[in-house]
């Protein structure tokens, strides 16, 4: 009974998720959207960090 419950719940959730995903291109696009947004954010963060003026103007410490 316990195994049935676990397996059944898992299959149900998986099935629902998959069904909705396949059914709607708009949903697929929406679900995938955060990965593009995140990448933009991460790259912009890196660019912002790299563009800080002191990096080029600040004296470099000697190599240890």
């Amino acid at each position, binding site marked *: *009974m*316990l*195994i049935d419950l*676990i*397996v059944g*719940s*898992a299959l149900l*959730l*998986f099935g629902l*998720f998959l069904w*909705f*995903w396949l059914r*709607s291109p*708009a*949903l*697929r*696009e*929406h*679900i*995938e*959207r*955060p*990965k*593009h*947004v*995140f*990448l*933009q*954010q*991460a*790259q*912009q*963060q*890196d660019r*912002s*960090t*790299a563009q*800080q003026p*002191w*990096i080029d103007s*600040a004296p*470099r*410490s000697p*190599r*240890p």
Partner: protein
Amino acid sequence: MSAGAFTPAPVQGSLVRAHSLAALATLLVSVLFGIVMSLQFLWPDLASGSLAFGWGRLRYAHTQGIMLGWLGNAFLAFLYHAVPVLTQRPVTNSTLGWGLFGLWNFAAVVPGWILVLSGISQPLEWAEFPLVIDWFVIAALVLAAVQFLPGFFRNGLDSLYVSGWYIVGGLVFTLLAYPMGNLVPELVSGATSAAFSGLWIHDAVGLFVTPLALAILYYVIPAASGRPVYSHFLSMLGFWGLFFFYPLNGTHHYVFSVIPMAAQLGAIAASALLGVIVVIVVSNLLLSLRGSGWLPRDPALRFVAVAVVFYFIVSMQGASQAQMTLNRFVHFSDWVIGHSHLAMLGFATFAAIGGIVHAWQRLPAARYNPRALGWAFWLLTSGISLMVIDLTIAGLVQGGLWQQAVPWMESVQASKPYWMVRVLSAIPITAGFVALGIGLLTGEVGAGVAALKSAPTGKVVTEPSHSDASHAGTARGLTTAYVVTCVAGIGFFGLSMLLLGLWPGQVIDAEVAATSPAKLLTLTASEQRGRQVYAREGCAYCHTQQVRFLEEDIRRFGAPTLAWEIQFDSPHLWGTRRIGPDLAREGGVRSADWQYAHLYDPRALVPRSIMPSYSALFAGDATRPSQAARDLVAYLETLGRARALAWPEAEQKAQAAPMDEHMAHLAFSSPELNAHPAAVRRGDPLPALAGVQPAANARLLWQNDCAGCHGPQGRGDGPAAAWLRPLPANLVEHRYSREYVLTVLWNGVAGTSMPAWRDQPLPNLLGLADLVQGLATDNNPPAADTATLAIGAGVYATHCVQCHGTEGRGDGFAAGEFRVAAVDFTLQQPSLALGLDVLRNGVPGSPMAPWTDRLSTAEQEAVVQYVRSFFEAGNGGAEVVNAD
């Protein structure tokens, strides 16, 4: 939300730096603890005399240091970098951040170490810091939730990136699981305590370490490679799959135990399903790494790429070793230690390093040395791979030997080469961590940020075009789905507590009520204190107290552990590793003197033993135990006592109680196994020996198992002899019948320190019996004259017959009262010199007193000659093998 409108939020660089440095410091200390422990496998006296640095306490400090000190700080360092990027908002408050830093390190990790090394601890796997520390950890987790989570809920769930989901899930579920795993096992007892503890063992890895490590992987891979993850859908599928199934795995740590089989099977099924989910997660991550090459140039990306591989291996290992077929073979062995190191030192540590390096590289004022980081990568990859492969093979060797009827010590002996390799693997691992520190603390200031300018940025990513209006409905639907799934996720955690904790507890309570004897012995104050000593010194981490429902366990350790036997154990001490033998039925197996001597100097008794010495519990000698040592030995004597004394009432009740048929068969088909098979017994018949040939290596067996007490030549003067009462027999000064020697080897000698040697194969016992008979130097003594024998008979009838019986068989009317049985002279013959010595000095530790005040010298000699005559009369001498 539009990426074009994105304004980078400030990162709390000082907190990234502080947690990274704390992570490195606690990592090195924790690894040092681990190295000292691994050395003690080969040189067990390394920390002799120090309880604080004894193996057990170091084990507590090692695992908690890795989880809370190293990984906890590393994750927090990463969160201070990642959360502002993911949420586009700064974390809640920098002052709060320093409070969290102080709380985590100076109220939890450092005091936790000090307390466990001082002997204040909680004997629960992955929950070893004492309760007082648990409250600080919970408070810190609450602060972490306040610090990091608010920003995630401001942008809407539908736009939350998978790393954000893992961060939210990790913090929320850890807040739920940590109290469950650390507090609840203290509130319940016995098998129910083990059930909850098992949940936490898995939740600590599955709900704290794994989510935050996966958050790093999903963050660093796209951020460092410049390409988005392959599929956000698959990543979300994996996220929910993990959070649904991880909590349901816990009971797989106690397969074949008394925890209801339905709960065990449920956990096993969930483990298999979790393996399927991991395949989805890993496939997505590997596809996300496409284009980065086999060996990415970016140091952080290189670490996380290997973390993905480690994650796949460790997860497949976990899913398969939970299955009964493999579990019965490898559980309790070094296979599991290899598995846990691959999880925590392989997957999680590589992910954590990836997270730290990625964040550190982006600190403008930080030094950065990619060359040293490259060294760290190769050293750690090779070292951890070597350790895990080595321990996995060691586990297979140990499991194979445990299946066979070979003495326990053979598995220890066979493991030593593997333990040596593990020690050697510490060299590249430690060097790798040092190189990591060098990579972060040397190099040019700002070199990491400068590298960003020259690094390839990957293709420019454009967000898919869409109409906000057309997506509004989709967003609402998706948000609703996520909310429902969130509720379901919390529900699954509750379900795990219900199905694998509370429900088994109910079943166990019912089973205890149905099977427990009416009046169960409980522990005395001394025994209870001894239990605390056992717990604080980490004895349960080498010695399980759990005989599983398996033939190989029952054959070696006695009947399987039933719930009623341990109903008052709070918390439980089942253990998850057998470096030494199981102690669930240790009571009656060894004498108190033996236990004291073994605790004081294990190798004096068992030369090949790797048990640490606990000489610190003694005042300079094994015969001068402290109260703690007395309490500990008193506790050891209770192990299995309730079951041994419960016959037949409890067994009859148990057989009438409903129980799984297979379990019932194993539990009750051998009622004599209520005690340990090697418990000292009086008069158990010998097994059939016809056709058994004596082992040829008896001399080696003697050196390994007998010389510690009886001495190298059998004179009863071994290194442990002086600590034992009665003294070990001087075998040179005795002649024995072969049957008697075999009976002693098979049953032990009650009231003495001579244990039963039933774990030895019969050929070994025969070989030893022959060897013992050959030790006698008095094989052809001159016969006594008739007059002397007549005087001796008179003395014997007056003074000796009450104990030794009329025919010298040790069956006098008073003999039954003695803890140490009266000598049966028909089976053993002391030399004349030894007999006189016994009469003059008695036998300390036995009822035999000195007789010099009552017998003249002539009477003493006469009675010794007389008792010696029983041996020939009883035909014992007919079997004597000539010493030549």
